[in-house]
């Protein structure tokens, strides 16, 4: 197991968000986290990334307690892609991707760091953008560059908060194919997805959350009731190429 979560609780100003989550995330697989808005998906992801500290409970990364890892050790194990990044300074793409190497750098980047950043750009297929200011990229290009920055970290686990929410269909396909390829190449990918049908196509493991609790963890359920319970709306299923797809049963059913 790459990540093991035990009895995890978290509250914002005494408002419980995560309520007793127990979870194991399989290694080298693509895991999707699903749930309605406010179900605690982003909070759970940030807790797993170590960006938030749990009120109680434990998280283990490759059997090591997350709370015992230094920031540098953690950054070398877990890469995190935020839901939204607001660029301020027009860094060149290569300069931006190089910042992913911060856990390896004391003062300034070495040749190895520059080489790794370049490899990450290649792997993400965006090396042609390296001399462009990252403030001038389209949403799709920026997301690929953000992924390249995470890849430059050389972390075996990559957490992504809604990586395709703002992307058009071609860019969504490109990002999802790439994440799927990374999982096949040995990375553990954990992504929050709003579109259950994208999860159905790409994810090998799904975690369904409702009101801060785990409703389901495993392969995508074929029966509709669990998914209906999660989204609290009537759904119907379609089956295509061995995958299950979900659509609302009727208009205004929510």
């Amino acid at each position, binding site marked *: 197991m790459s990540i093991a979560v035990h009895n995890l609780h978290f509250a914002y100003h005494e408002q419980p968000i995560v309520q007793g989550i127990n979870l194991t995330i399989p290694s080298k697989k693509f895991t999707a986290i699903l749930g309605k808005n406010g179900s605690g998906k982003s909070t759970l992801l940030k807790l797993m*990334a*170590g*960006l938030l500290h749990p009120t109680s409970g434990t998280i283990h990364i490759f059997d090591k307690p997350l709370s015992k890892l230094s*920031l*540098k050790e*953690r*950054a*070398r194990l*877990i*890469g*995190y892609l*935020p839901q939204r*990044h*607001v*660029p*301020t*300074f*027009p*860094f*060149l793409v290569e*300069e*931006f991707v*190089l*910042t*992913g*190497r*911060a*856990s390896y*750098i004391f*003062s*300034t*980047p070495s040749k190895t760091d520059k080489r790794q950043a370049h490899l990450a750009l290649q792997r993400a297929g965006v090396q042609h953008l390296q001399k462009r*200011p990252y*403030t001038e990229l389209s949403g799709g290009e920026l997301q690929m560059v953000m992924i390249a*920055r995470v890849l430059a*970290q050389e972390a075996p686990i990559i957490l992504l908060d809604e990586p395709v929410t703002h992307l058009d269909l071609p860019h969504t396909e490109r990002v999802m194919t790439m994440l799927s390829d990374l999982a096949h190449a040995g990375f553990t990918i954990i992504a929050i997805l709003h579109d259950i049908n994208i999860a159905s196509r790409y994810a090998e493991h799904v975690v369904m959350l409702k009101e801060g609790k785990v409703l389901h963890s495993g392969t995508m359920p074929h029966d509709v009731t669990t998914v209906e319970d999660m989204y609290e709306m009537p759904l119907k299923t379609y089956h295509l190429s061995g995958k299950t797809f979900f659509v609302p049963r009727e208009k205004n059913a929510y």
Partner: protein
Amino acid sequence: MKKAALVILYATAPLIILISLMVSTTSEITPSVIISYFCGNITDMATHNLIGTIIFDVRLPRIILAFIVGASLSMSGHALQALFRNPLVEPYILGISSGAAFGAALCIATALASIQLGAFCFGFIAAIMSYFFAREGNRVSIVSLLLSGVLISGIFTALLAIVQFLSDPFRLQTIVHWTMGNLHTATWAKVRSSALPIFIGAIWLFLMRWRINVLALGDEEAASVGLHPEREKILVLIPATLVVTSSVAMAGVIGMVGLIVPHMSRMLFGSDNKASLPASAVFGGSFLLVVDDLSRTFMAFELPIGIFTIVIGAPLFFYLLKKTRLGMGA
């Protein structure tokens, strides 16, 4: 292109220093006299000694003071703009200028300690107060820090007004002159007293220059790649405060330099602080030196340097703004 611009910047700095030695309002000490002095062509011992004193005890400390004050304000302004992710940030954002002005005024009015010491201590106290008032638990948000800096600045401005109100006219004039910035009172003693903290702060910021890139992306982005945002903020704020308070203690409050030079530096040399932060320091030093030279040349009498930095800096900044993109995102 950027590399060529950097080479030009670093090559022109010693030239500007050399030319500044020759700049004069008097008709006696002309550039040719100074060249003759260095060539050993002045045979009269008394004249030789007089010119030597003017060069080494009057002009050189002023030139060095102008250069290191310009470099300090620009370097810390550059680092703080990146840290705060805000183009409007200047090095005095934590209330340093108001605190230092109050400290200097208090010492001018009461003669409790030297003006420099008073300015340094209260400049530093203002920055520390801004930081701790902005702190919530273990976190300091950038917005809170900006707001608390504005408030602390307001408090010290009010305290300064009280001191000015209670001071006699002669001391009041001295206080007002001090707050406008002053390079004409430069001495070796002044330069020596602040050289060490500025040197330490500058080296420290120089070592932090690449990590400032990471911090400029935001707290979450920095934490996710292994930097502790709160610790790193302190690691930038301490040296930035050190160089600014030391330079304010030496030369009073000189505006605009720390705001516009970092922008100009980013426009010309790019956003990567690895190159543009040291460039800002050299650019700022050269810029303030040129401004000081012009202020000495154009006027028969000395106007405070703070006025000239705005008069010369603002049009230059507007020109660059029209010619190139501002060194920030859209």
